[in-house]
């Protein structure tokens, strides 16, 4: 059961309501460690379904709650006069679920009333409840503030006139802010914001109110319950504390290793670049509030640092407690990041635009939150803020210093990871490749790939379209391409190998692959195909060539890893080239084990 895609923003309401009992059973069966808590809900409205869904969100975050639910609209009586059931329940936390419908002292149109007095009376009711509950139970109290009413009887004047209800709601909300600042244990659940964000026409449901006294429509209950659960979790110190981020197409547009620092999209000169800036600013502010940041990116370390050094970048190298930019599988990197900053898996959120990476991390590190952020930069910020992962009940100077603490506290532990699970991951991707001789329809894409790939590129030779076309028609040349599909979709044409037959040997002048499909063994499938080609043409030997560039260090030992041995160069060779050779044996032993080949 993919509970996270049901319960997290954007919430899957249909499944939440229909499958709530199944979801609950699933969450209880996972064997996660659950903390037991008692929560009293004192409602001014019907709260039954709110409690059911809140229960799911708390379970999802490791809290198994039991609930006391006040009789309908008995929140005031329960708070002030007590109740033997509530007393013996002895709550760990109390939630006062009142809404705009519960406001008693709204000004009446045309009457001569003193607005200040009305506010005093309304506020006084809540203060007396908070203080009575504190005196008796001495536990945190969460209080809804108020949403705006559905209708404005005075139109625009409703906001500014002393008898306007919108005006009254905003004044009461402001007085709540002032009163709770004098008290330690009262927390505001900001439904005023939530209802605005969702829209009042979605929030209010008159039919539901008249038939069953629910103050909000069912469609907003998941948002409500999620927002409330995050506040409650944060009161209990269970907010997330570490945000791990991918780089390419997550913190900036494009691939820094291929496009170069000057080529990535970041900054106000393009719409996309501007959106990345906004996202980075949001992350920077979280960091200032005490959220630790780390990088986990498939990149050369130097490229990652160069990208963060982009002149418009809001986030810089020093903002991150740990930076893992290498070619190891991400779940291993994340595991060691978590160890270095000394946190639990359940305090970590991971953001990555690549669904395959998300799936890997989710499956290997089930307690890490991995939201499906999609691949549109303008949406990322919603997934970051609407899930309220990093909720904090108040911000002290300590929080602002905490980031440094994480950096200082790094433990330089040895990487003791095992790679046993990675093959299972590759298996799970259900990869299929099409590897064949270049046909005319692909020549344009092949040319494009040849001219922009920098990292997995053995020689970085650039050829133009006419040259590629010539290769594809020549019997001495071999021009192979590979397309890769996996369960997440089609990656398209992502790899090219070009070679020429010379003196009974196949000399590879070009071998490149897009970074999108690194560590998928596609290069092995290409190699198998090369062997097959050699066998069918009676070629005995493959000669590989490597030319070092600023960006292709990751393939410096590529031929060696494939089992090539050093090749003695002849005088005509380019001086910076290093040659390798492989003698083709007709063993039929395939290197690729995870990718199915399509005909």
């Amino acid at each position, binding site marked *: 059961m993919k509970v996270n895609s049901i319960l997290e923003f954007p919430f899957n*309401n*249909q499944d939440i*309501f*229909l*499958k709530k*009992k*199944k979801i609950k059973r699933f969450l209880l069966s996972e064997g996660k460690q659950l903390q037991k808590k008692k929560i009293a809900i004192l409602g001014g409205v*019907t709260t*039954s*379904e709110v409690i059911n869904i809140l229960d799911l969100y708390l379970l999802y975050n490791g809290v198994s709650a039991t609930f006391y639910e006040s009789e309908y609209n008995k929140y005031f009586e329960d708070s002030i006069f007590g109740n033997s059931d509530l007393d013996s329940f002895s709550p760990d936390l109390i939630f006062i679920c009142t809404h705009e419908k519960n406001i008693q002292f709204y000004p009446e149109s045309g009457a001569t009333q003193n607005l200040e007095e009305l506010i005093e009376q309304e506020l006084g009711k809540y203060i007396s409840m908070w203080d009575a509950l504190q005196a008796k139970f001495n536990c945190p109290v969460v209080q809804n503030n108020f949403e705006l009413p559905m209708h404005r009887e005075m139109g625009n004047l409703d906001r500014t006139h002393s008898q306007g209800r919108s005006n009254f709601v905003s004044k009461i909300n402001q007085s709540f802010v002032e009163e709770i600042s004098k008290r330690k244990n009262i927390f505001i659940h900001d439904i005023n914001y939530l209802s605005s964000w969702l829209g009042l026409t979605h929030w209010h449901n008159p*039919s*539901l109110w*008249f*038939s*069953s006294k*629910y103050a909000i429509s*069912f469609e907003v209950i998941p948002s409500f319950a999620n927002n409330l659960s995050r506040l409650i979790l944060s009161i209990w110190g269970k907010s997330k504390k570490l945000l791990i981020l991918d780089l390419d197409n997550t913190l900036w547009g494009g691939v820094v290793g291929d496009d170069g620092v000057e080529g990535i999209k970041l900054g106000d000169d393009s719409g996309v670049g501007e959106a990345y800036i906004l996202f980075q600013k949001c992350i920077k502010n979280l960091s200032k509030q005490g959220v630790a940041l780390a990088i986990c990116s498939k990149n050369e370390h130097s490229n990652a640092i160069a990208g963060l050094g982009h002149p418009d970048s809001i986030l810089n190298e020093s903002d991150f407690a740990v930076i893992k930019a290498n070619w190891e599988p991400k779940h291993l990197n994340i595991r060691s990041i978590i160890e270095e900053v000394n946190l639990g898996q359940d305090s970590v959120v991971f953001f990555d635009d690549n669904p395959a990476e998300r799936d890997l991390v989710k499956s290997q590190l089930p307690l890490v939150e991995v939201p499906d952020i999609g691949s549109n930069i303008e949406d990322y910020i919603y997934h970051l803020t609407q899930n309220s992962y990093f909720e904090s009940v108040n911000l002290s100077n300590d929080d602002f210093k905490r980031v440094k603490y994480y950096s200082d506290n790094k433990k330089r532990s040895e990487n003791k990871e095992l790679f046993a699970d990675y093959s299972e991951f590759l298996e799970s991707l259900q990869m299929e490749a099409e590897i064949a001789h270049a046909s005319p329809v692909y020549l344009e894409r092949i040319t494009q790939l040849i001219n922009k790939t920098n990292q997995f590129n053995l020689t970085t030779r650039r050829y133009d379209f006419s040259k590629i076309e010539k290769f594809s028609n020549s019997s001495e040349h071999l021009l192979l391409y590979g397309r890769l599909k996996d369960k997440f979709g089609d990656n398209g044409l992502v790899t090219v190998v070009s070679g020429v037959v010379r003196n009974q040997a196949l000399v590879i002048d070009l071998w490149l692959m897009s970074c999108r499909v690194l560590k998928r063994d596609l290069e092995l499938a290409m190699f198998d195909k090369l062997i097959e080609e050699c066998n069918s043409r009676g070629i005995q030997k493959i000669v590989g060539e490597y030319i070092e560039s600023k960006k292709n260090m990751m393939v410096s030992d590529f031929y060696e890893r494939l089992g090539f041995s050093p090749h003695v160069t002849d005088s005509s060779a380019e001086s910076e080239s290093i040659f390798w050779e492989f003698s083709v044996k007709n063993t039929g032993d395939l290197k690729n084990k995870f990718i199915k080949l399509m005909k």
Partner: protein
Amino acid sequence: MSKQEVMDELQELFRDIFDDEDLILSEGTNSNEVEEWDSLNHINLVIAIERKFNIKFALGEIQSLKDVGEMVDMMIAKHL
């Protein structure tokens, strides 16, 4: 939709709401026969039906439904 088609889909929805995979729905099924069919679950049911069949019950209609047969008749009357 025919009455039978509505009944079939409704049965599936009842099974989810009442978390009972063996629940068999007939036209005579009413709230006395299904243990958890109280007023709160009645609301859950109505909202789930509205969403699934894309129809809207008027305020008065919701409270007066006696059994499943009546419910289905009303749904079909809403141009299902």
